[in-house]
C-alpha cells in the first residue's frame, strides 16, 4: 500500500467518524428543541429530527467524497500529514457550518411556535365596560 492510498484511507476514516459523531450529537440534543417547537408532538418531532439528520449526512458525506482527491504528488510522511490536516480542516469547517445552520433551523422553529402564545407588547391605557352586540335585542 503506497502512501497516497494510506492518506486517503486515514482521511476517510477521520472524516466519516467526525460526521457520524456530529450527526449523533445533533440527533440526540436537537430532539428536545423540536419536541418543544411542536408542542410535545413527539412522533412529528422525531420524524423532522430524522429528516434533518439524513440531510446532514448527505451533504457532509457528499462533501467528504468530493474533497477526497489530492491533486499533487504525496511521497513522504510529512506531505501526507500536511495534506491530511488541510483536508480534515476543511471537513471540520463544513461540519461546523452545517451544525450551526441546523441549530439556526431548530431555534427558528422553536421561536416561531413560541410567538403564537406570546403576551401583548404593551399594557392597556385603561379598562372600559363592554357589552356584546348580541345582548341588545330590545
Amino acid at each position: 500500500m503506497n502512501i497516497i492510498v494510506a492518506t486517503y484511507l486515514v482521511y476517510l476514516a477521520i472524516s466519516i467518524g467526525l460526521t457520524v459523531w456530529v450527526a449523533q450529537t445533533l440527533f440526540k440534543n436537537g430532539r428536545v428543541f423540536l419536541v418543544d417547537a411542536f408542542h410535545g408532538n413527539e412522533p412529528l418531532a422525531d420524524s423532522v429530527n430524522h429528516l434533518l439528520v439524513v440531510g446532514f449526512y448527505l451533504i457532509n458525506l457528499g462533501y467528504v467524497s468530493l474533497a477526497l482527491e489530492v491533486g499533487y504528488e504525496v511521497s513522504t510522511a510529512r506531505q501526507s500529514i500536511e495534506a491530511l490536516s488541510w483536508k480534515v480542516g476543511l471537513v471540520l469547517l463544513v461540519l461546523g457550518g452545517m451544525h450551526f445552520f441546523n441549530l439556526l433551523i431548530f431555534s427558528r422553529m422553536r421561536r416561531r411556535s413560541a410567538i403564537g402564545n406570546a403576551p401583548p407588547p404593551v399594557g392597556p391605557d385603561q379598562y372600559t365596560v363592554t357589552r356584546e352586540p348580541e345582548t341588545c335585542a330590545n
Partner: protein
Amino acid sequence: MRKLTVLYDPECGLCRRVREWLIAQPKFVELAFVPVKSEEALFRYPRLNHELTQKDVTVIGDDGGVYWGPKAWLMCLWALKKYREWSYRLSSPELLPTTRRVVSMISQNRYRLEVLGRFS
C-alpha cells in the same frame, strides 16, 4: 386575549386602506372593525370617551382593555402572524418614542396623506 375590536374612522381613506390590509393578513388574534361613534360602538362601550376615539385609532380587547393611538397600532401588529415580532421590536424602550412620534404624525395628518397617496 382572543379578539380585538378596532374603532376606525370610515371617513378617512388611509384608515379604510389600512383596514383592508389588516383584514387580508393572517392573524393570531381575530380583529373586528367598528366605525368610530357608530351606534354599535356607542352600545358596546357605553363608558368610553368616544370623542377621543375620533382623534386616533382605538383598539379594545375582549377583556375591556383600551389601547389608544400608538398602542393601538402595536396591538394590531401583534395580532398579525407576520408582524408580531415587529410589535415587540417597535415597543422596545429604544424604539417606542420614535414609534409614538411617527404614529401621531400620521394620525394628525391622515386626511392630508390621503390626498398624497390617493388613498380615497
